[in-house]
């Protein structure tokens, strides 16, 4: 098997408006996916992520903007000539064909012989661990099996772009994680440039090289998964990734401390002068004996403690500000107890406007 020619995908200022006067589904989306990279398009339902995928596939035409593969525009190219194979939310196997015929479909459409398409279909079925199912009818397979076949059907054409539209969302939780691993595996093996649409933040984090967070038809942040936790760009991004701790303050200058209702905090990151919102992950908050070394600390009352199995989540109240802290389950703080809270400088992150 020859490795596929990995392509570099670029969306340049892509917008789409369905009807005159309608709110645009996409507003100037720009994005570059490097060859062999897996990018997750993450966002709530209706944010425009599937629209963006269909534009790349050619099933929708943008109102304005450019879609380029290796620097060449795709917009004049019909979907069947783009070499962009798509896996949909539903398996959508052709009901009148055997599993093997389904997988070999793309090859036969390109004029491959029966023998060749059949051999390569069997090979592709092996890649998704469905060897031996070639003679079955699609309706004899379970939902997870059908989605594997659908993945094989897309892979067999050695697409220059692999487009996945929430392919796991219709599956049960345990099947979902197994298939997720399989997707990552075949994607890495084949080195396909891949765009994966999902509304599931965990799925995006586990799968993607980079995540593009889209809300309201616009790109909010495009970075490696870790950055969405450590360095979210805005409060909206931080909230989408589950951040709950927000502290309003005012910065004295790039190196200066930030004044807040809880006290004066030093940060490891420069903060421009003016109003600023700080955030910190609950896991980074230090309590009681952990917060000995003085700086960036204040006293708060434990207002709620929730046992979560692998950790305990505390709600802390200091004046009008309420913060969450997640600690190992062996810590024992009682509700109503007062404790020292430290927000380590390297964990405090200033959010952009």
């Amino acid at each position, binding site marked *: 098997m020859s490795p596929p020619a990995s392509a570099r995908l670029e969306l340049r200022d892509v917008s789409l408006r369905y009807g005159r006067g309608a709110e645009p589904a996409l507003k100037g989306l720009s994005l570059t996916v490097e060859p062999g990279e897996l990018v997750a398009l993450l966002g709530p339902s209706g944010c425009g992520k599937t629209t963006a995928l269909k534009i790349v596939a050619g099933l929708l035409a943008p109102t304005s903007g450019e879609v380029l593969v290796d620097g060449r525009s795709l917009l004049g190219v019909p979907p*069947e000539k783009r070499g962009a194979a798509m896996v949909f939310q539903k398996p959508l196997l052709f009901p009148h064909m055997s599993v093997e015929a389904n997988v070999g479909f793309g090859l036969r459409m390109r004029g491959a012989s029966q023998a060749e398409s059949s051999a390569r279909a069997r090979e592709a079925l092996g890649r998704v661990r469905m060897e031996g199912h070639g003679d079955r009818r699609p309706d004899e397979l379970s939902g997870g099996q059908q989605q594997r076949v659908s993945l094989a059907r897309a892979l067999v054409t050695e697409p220059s772009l692999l487009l996945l539209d929430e392919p796991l969302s219709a599956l049960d939780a345990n099947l979902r994680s197994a298939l997720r691993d399989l997707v990552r595996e075949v994607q890495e093996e084949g080195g396909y440039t891949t765009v994966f649409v999902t509304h599931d933040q965990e799925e995006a984090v586990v799968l993607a090289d980079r995540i593009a967070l889209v809300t309201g038809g616009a790109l909010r942040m495009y970075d490696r998964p870790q950055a969405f936790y450590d360095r979210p760009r805005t409060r909206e991004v931080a909230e989408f990734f589950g951040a709950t701790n927000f502290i309003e303050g005012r910065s004295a200058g790039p190196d200066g401390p930030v004044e807040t209702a809880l006290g004066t905090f030093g940060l490891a990151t420069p903060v421009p002068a003016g109003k600023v919102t700080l955030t910190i992950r609950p896991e980074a908050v230090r309590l009681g004996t952990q917060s000995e070394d003085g700086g960036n600390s204040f006293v708060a009352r434990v207002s709620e403690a929730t046992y979560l199995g692998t950790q305990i989540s505390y709600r802390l109240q200091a004046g009008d500000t309420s913060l969450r802290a997640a600690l190992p389950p062996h810590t024992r703080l009682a509700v109503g107890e007062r404790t020292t809270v430290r927000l380590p400088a390297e964990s405090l992150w200033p959010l952009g406007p």
Partner: protein
Amino acid sequence: MVGGVFSRFKIPLLLAPALLVLGGLFAGGLYAALVQSLGYFPAIGMTEVSLDAYREVLGSRRFLDSLLLTFYVAGVSTVLATVLAVLAALALRRSPSRISSVIFQVPITVPHLVAAVGIALVVSQTGLGARLAASLGLIGEPAEFPALLYDRYSVGIILTYVWKEMPFVALVVLAGLRGVAGELEEVARTLGASAWQRFWYVVFPVISPGIVAASLIVFAFTFGAFEVPFLLGRSYPTILPVMAYDEYRSVELTDRPAAMAINVLITLVTALTAALYLRLSRRIGGRRGSS
């Protein structure tokens, strides 16, 4: 335990009224037709059961001509309606569904007689078609326009059926195109299939069971329908249901078993078509249900 008794017999009780009505009128009527076709007709003194009526009917030239005509009219109407329906559905698949469904619902809802009169006013020798031909200088006299009513090719009947039944098939096709066939077509597209390949290898195979089922319904209907051929057909040969009616209305009461025998034969053909349809639609339903 009134409730218990009720719930135990709930389903039979709920079904009873409909089954009684249909059993009495439809099944009872069919049974009577069958009995009478066998020559059992005590009202006119015929009490001997025999297959004479069938022998007489099947052996007659008139019946064979009728049978051929009926198959011809039903067959041609069904094929034309189906082909046109597929074309119309393809033409309208991207139009708003409200508009297309209004367009197709008009002929479906309007009675057959209205369609027959409308078609007659278009294709008769003084109809719209003839007037158009005359104003184009193609003909001078109404009589020069081809006779399309009461004619040997049953053009008027077939056109009426095509106009009436095409939209029914078209809506079935359209539902298929807008449903799963449309999604599968997108998949095929991303896998590199051209427009023709998509239609031939994906869309058509997926919607064809629905098309066949719908055209079976059209065939069964046009095979057994009475009024349009009664209005627009020739007096010889007539379509089978009209022949049955003529025999039944005959002054000779002894013709009645023959009328009933024709009825039984019509029922057999249409029931067979219906059974085919039901088998097919169950298979479509079953496939849809399990995927």
